[in-house]
């Protein structure tokens, strides 16, 4: 195996990992602080991408559209919290599952009603839609490097917010001892509103970053939602640090699995069976990883309270 090839595949894995982190960090906070299962988080990822695509086309400027798109995601988060989520905050988990599942159906169909079921494009400026040489023989798409940098930036920002600010302190306290926080007179509803809207913005931002690579589709949030849940469960619900480590782990396992599973299977099976079984088994890897982690640590790697 070529070392440079492995290095590029590791970059690919980090790239997926940071996208997942952007989605999962908001999800894990909403879950951790408010004990709220939000299946519609994938919808916010999708909506963010649509906002950005529409606003970039409207404004004619990539960067302006990007910023406006993030603002629109934030606004959408506020609106959703105010109209729907607030009324479910004290309902049972299963009610939340059913209601947010309904939101997936409504928004997925609604978006395809407005924008059509086909993919839209987020066009990168020509200066960003190119590759930069890394080693001799290998170059890497610039946008993917930007995703990694943006993911690192958001991780640092979140760390600073959570570790250094008063709001962050409340979030930390809220995720482990919600009753105590409420008893101390903190308006937990407002805290939830802020955490929720911020999470929606991060998800929308992730959708935009990924949408520039893959195109923007009404159902793009579905698979990301499941992966994000895998991430927060492996990382430990409520733990942003856990979400970061789990996201990178999942991103790497998934990408390296896809890159090398067929070749490894080829050592044991005929070429055609390996080509058919390899991709399926590569897709299985992250679930095997999750089951292993939960078998050893039933509350994830960084369970809150650790």
């Amino acid at each position, binding site marked *: 195996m070529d070392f440079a090839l492995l290095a590029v595949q590791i970059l690919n894995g980090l790239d997926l990992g940071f996208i997942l982190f952007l989605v999962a960090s908001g999800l894990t906070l909403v*879950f951790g602080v408010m004990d709220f*299962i939000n299946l519609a988080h994938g919808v916010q990822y999708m909506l963010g991408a649509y906002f950005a695509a529409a606003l970039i086309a409207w404004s004619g400027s990539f960067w302006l559209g990007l910023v406006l798109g993030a603002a629109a995601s934030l606004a959408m988060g506020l609106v959703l919290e105010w109209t*729907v989520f607030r*009324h*479910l905050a*004290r*309902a*049972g*988990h*299963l*009610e939340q*599952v*059913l*209601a947010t*599942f*309904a*939101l*997936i*159906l*409504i928004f*997925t*169909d*609604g978006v395809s*009603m407005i924008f059509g079921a086909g993919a839209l494009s987020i066009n990168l400026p020509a200066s960003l839609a190119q590759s930069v040489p890394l080693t001799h023989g290998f170059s890497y798409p610039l946008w993917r490097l930007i995703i990694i940098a943006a993911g690192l930036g958001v991780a640092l920002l979140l760390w600073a917010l959570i570790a250094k600010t008063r709001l962050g302190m409340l979030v930390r306290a809220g995720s482990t001892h919600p009753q105590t926080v409420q008893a101390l007179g903190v308006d937990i509803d407002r805290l939830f509103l802020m955490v929720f809207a911020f999470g929606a913005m991060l998800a929308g931002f992730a959708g935009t970053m990924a949408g520039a690579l893959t195109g923007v589709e009404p159902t793009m949030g579905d698979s990301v939602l*499941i992966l994000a*849940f*895998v991430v927060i*469960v492996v990382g430990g*619900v409520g733990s942003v640090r856990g979400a970061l480590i789990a996201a990178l782990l999942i991103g790497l396992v998934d990408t390296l699995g896809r890159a090398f599973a067929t070749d490894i299977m080829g050592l044991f099976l005929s070429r055609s*069976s390996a080509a*058919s*079984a390899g991709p*399926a*088994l590569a*897709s*299985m890897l992250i*679930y*095997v990883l*999750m*089951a292993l982690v*939960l*078998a050893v640590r*039933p*509350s*994830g790697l960084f369970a809150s309270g650790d």
Partner: protein
Amino acid sequence: MLPQRLKNFVRHEPTTALLALVFIIALLAGQVLGVTAPTTLLARAAIFAMAALSLSFILGQGGMVSLGHAAPMGLGAYVTLSLSMLGFKDLFLVMACAFVAGATFSALTGLIALRTRGVYFIMITLAFAQMAYYAMSSLSVFGGTDGIALPVRSTLFGWPLLRADSATALLAVLMLGVMFWGLSRVTRSRFGMALRASHLNEARFTALGFEPLPYRLLAYSFAGGLSALAGVLLANLTDYIAPSFLDWHRSGELIVMVVLGGVARPAGAILGAFALIYLESLLGGLTQYWNLALGLILLAIVLLRGRFEGATRITP
């Protein structure tokens, strides 16, 4: 007194009553408009009701929210397929093998999954179901991702009972009835009480000297076996078996059926399954955006139910 019982029923379970009413009206309207409900759809609804009922048992009684309940159901279908490919098609044999396969899968995965609680349980059951999904997708002998046609339907003592969908519908409704009766008995039994207790107050249950795991594991694998029986019927109804049978979307649909009907009521799962299957068929014929319509209906039901009945306090 029947009217009195009906009154009580409506008072205590308004949404069940409302859903049942809507269902009856829709059926009647269909008859009047000449749109008779096809027997295949009835069979499909009864089959999903069987799977949803078995999920409702572990969810309602044991608090086990499995997001992988389509896996034993799908495995039941794949058992039917593989036996049929090998030339075994007797319904009793197929059902017995499917039950064992579904129960074994649930028992083995349950041993690990039941160590976790809450959302971790939801996700680990999903993980095992996804593994089963990808395992079936990787088997080219079963058609891989595309799936494959069932060579021949199951027979009863060599008699091709399931050749007609109406017979499958009848059998499914019968089995659903037996299952409902049986599970109600189990719920009221000593085992059912222990199961409930293990979920409602685990600490006290353990303090009383009980070990929760055996009760939960037994219930979990039993439900898996029952779900596999539904899978056998689904394979016979569809004549085509694909990995989408064990997809997480399917598991999610089963949860939606259970929650829609109401976790607390025994017949809720049946009601939810019928409502969802018929709504899907009905709305699909009316509008291209039937998912949107379905979503609005579901959302309205949750929000209204929260107002009228208060939340069902089953926290996973």
